[in-house]
C-alpha cells in the first residue's frame, strides 16, 4: 500500500506548505478570531442592550449568518467586498480586493455571529449583583461593561472561545473554493502539479489533526485550571 509512496514530494514542498500556506492559514485564523471576538462582543452588547431596534438588528444578523453555509458566505463576500469597498471609499468603480482581505472580511463577519452567541452566554452568566454594584459605585454603562462585566464574561468563556477558534482554524480550509493558497490550497496545488494526491492530502490531514488535537488538549487543561479557581 505504501510501496509507491513518494515521501520526497512532501519534503520538497515543505517550505512552500508552511512558509506560504500555513502562514496564511494561521494569520487568517488569528486575525479573524480577534476581529470576530470584537465584533461578536459588540453584537452581544447590542442584543442585551434592551434597545428594541438594536437588539432586533443584531438578532437578525446572527440568525442570518448562522443559517447560511460558510461556503455560500465565502462566495457572497468574495463578490460583495469590492462593492462594499467602493461604497466605503466612495470610489467610482468596485475596488479591487486581494484574496487575503476578502477572506479576512468574510471570516470576521461570519465568526462574529458565533462569537457573539458565546459572549452573550458569558455576559448572561454573570450574576445581576455585579452590574448592580457597579451601578451603585457610580460607574457608567461603558465603564460597567469595560471593567466589571466583560472581563469576567471573557474569562468564563475563554475555553469555549478557544474551542471556537479551533473550529475556525479548520474552517479556514474552505477558502479552497476561491483557489486561495492557504495550507490546504498549497497542498492541493502541489498534489495536482505532481500528481501526488495521496501523499499530499494525507500529509495535510495529519498536520491539521496534530495542530487541532494539541490545541484542544491545551484548551482542556486550561479549562481544568480555570474551573478549580471557581
Amino acid at each position, binding site marked *: 500500500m505504501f510501496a509507491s509512496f513518494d515521501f520526497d514530494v512532501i519534503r520538497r514542498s515543505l517550505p512552500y506548505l508552511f512558509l506560504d500556506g500555513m502562514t496564511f492559514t494561521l494569520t487568517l485564523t488569528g486575525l479573524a478570531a480577534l476581529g470576530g471576538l470584537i465584533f461578536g462582543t459588540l453584537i452581544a452588547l447590542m442584543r442585551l442592550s434592551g434597545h428594541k431596534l438594536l437588539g432586533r438588528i443584531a438578532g437578525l444578523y446572527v440568525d442570518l449568518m448562522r*443559517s447560511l453555509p460558510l461556503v455560500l458566505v465565502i462566495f457572497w463576500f468574495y463578490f460583495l467586498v469590492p462593492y462594499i469597498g467602493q461604497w466605503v471609499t466612495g470610489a467610482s468603480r468596485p475596488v479591487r480586493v486581494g484574496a487575503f482581505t476578502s477572506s479576512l472580511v468574510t471570516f470576521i463577519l461570519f465568526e462574529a455571529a458565533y462569537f457573539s452567541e458565546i459572549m452573550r452566554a458569558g455576559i448572561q452568566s454573570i450574576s445581576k449583583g455585579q452590574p448592580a454594584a457597579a451601578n451603585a459605585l457610580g460607574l457608567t454603562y461603558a465603564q460597567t461593561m469595560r471593567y466589571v462585566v466583560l472581563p469576567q464574561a471573557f474569562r468564563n468563556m475563554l475555553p469555549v472561545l478557544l474551542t471556537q477558534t479551533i473550529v475556525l482554524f479548520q474552517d479556514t480550509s474552505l477558502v479552497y473554493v476561491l483557489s486561495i493558497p492557504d495550507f*490546504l490550497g498549497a497542498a492541493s496545488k502541489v498534489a495536482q502539479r505532481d500528481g501526488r494526491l495521496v501523499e499530499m492530502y494525507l500529509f495535510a490531514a495529519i498536520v491539521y489533526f496534530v495542530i487541532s488535537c494539541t490545541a484542544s488538549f491545551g484548551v482542556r487543561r486550561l479549562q481544568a485550571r480555570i474551573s478549580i479557581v471557581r
Partner: protein
Amino acid sequence: MNYHWNWSIFWEPAPNGTGTYLDMLLSGLVLTIETAICAWIIALVFGTIFGVLRTLPSKTASRLGFAYVEFFRNMPLLVQLFIWFFVLPEILPPSWGLWMKQMPHAPFYTAAIGIGLFMSARVAEQTRAGISSLPRGQKLAATALGLTTAQTYRYVLLPMAFRIMIPPLTSEFLSTIKNTSVAITIGLIELTGEARAMQEFSFQVFEAFTGATVLYLLINIVVVIAMRFLERALAVPGYITGK
C-alpha cells in the same frame, strides 16, 4: 452601486437545458436535502454507537469512543472529504479503487458518508452529554430491577436521553444541511453549487446568491418548526423542556 439588477433572471431559461434558473436552484435544493438526510442517518447511527461507548463502564470502550470522536473532530471536513474521494480509491486494492472511481454518483455517496461520519463525532458528544445528564438513579434503578447493561440502555437511558437531546440534535442537523455545501469541492452540485453555476451562466451574482440564501433560510425555518413540534410531542412529563 453600478450593478445591474435583474430579478426576473429566475424565470429565464438556463443554458443547461433543464428549465429556468429557478428550476436549477430548486434541483440543487433537492440534492442538498437528500444528501443531508443520508448523512444525518449515518451520523445518528454511528454517533449513538460511539456516544454510548463513551458512557460504558469499560475503560476500553470509552477510550475507543474518545479516539473515534477525536479522530473525526480534529480534521477539517474538507480534508476528510478529499481523503474519502481522492485518497481512499488509491490506497485500496486496485480492483476496489477502480469500482469506487467508476461508481455513478460518486460525489453524492462520498459526501453522504464523509459528512455523515464527520457529524457522527458531534452526535456522539451530544449523546454522551445527554446520557450523562440523566440522574444517576435511573441507571441504578434499572440495575436494581435486574436489567442487563444492554437493556438498561435500550429501555431506560436512551429513550430518555434522546428526548432531552432534541434541541442540540436540531442544531447538529442544521449543521449537517449547511455542511453539504462543502461537497461542491468534490463536484456535488447542490444548492450552493447551483447558485455558483447560475452566477457563472448569467453573471447575476447577487440574484443567484440571494436565491440560495432564501432557500437555505426556508430549510432552516422548516426544520426548526418541525423539531419544535417533535420536541413538544416527545417532551418528558415532569421535565422542564423550555418554553
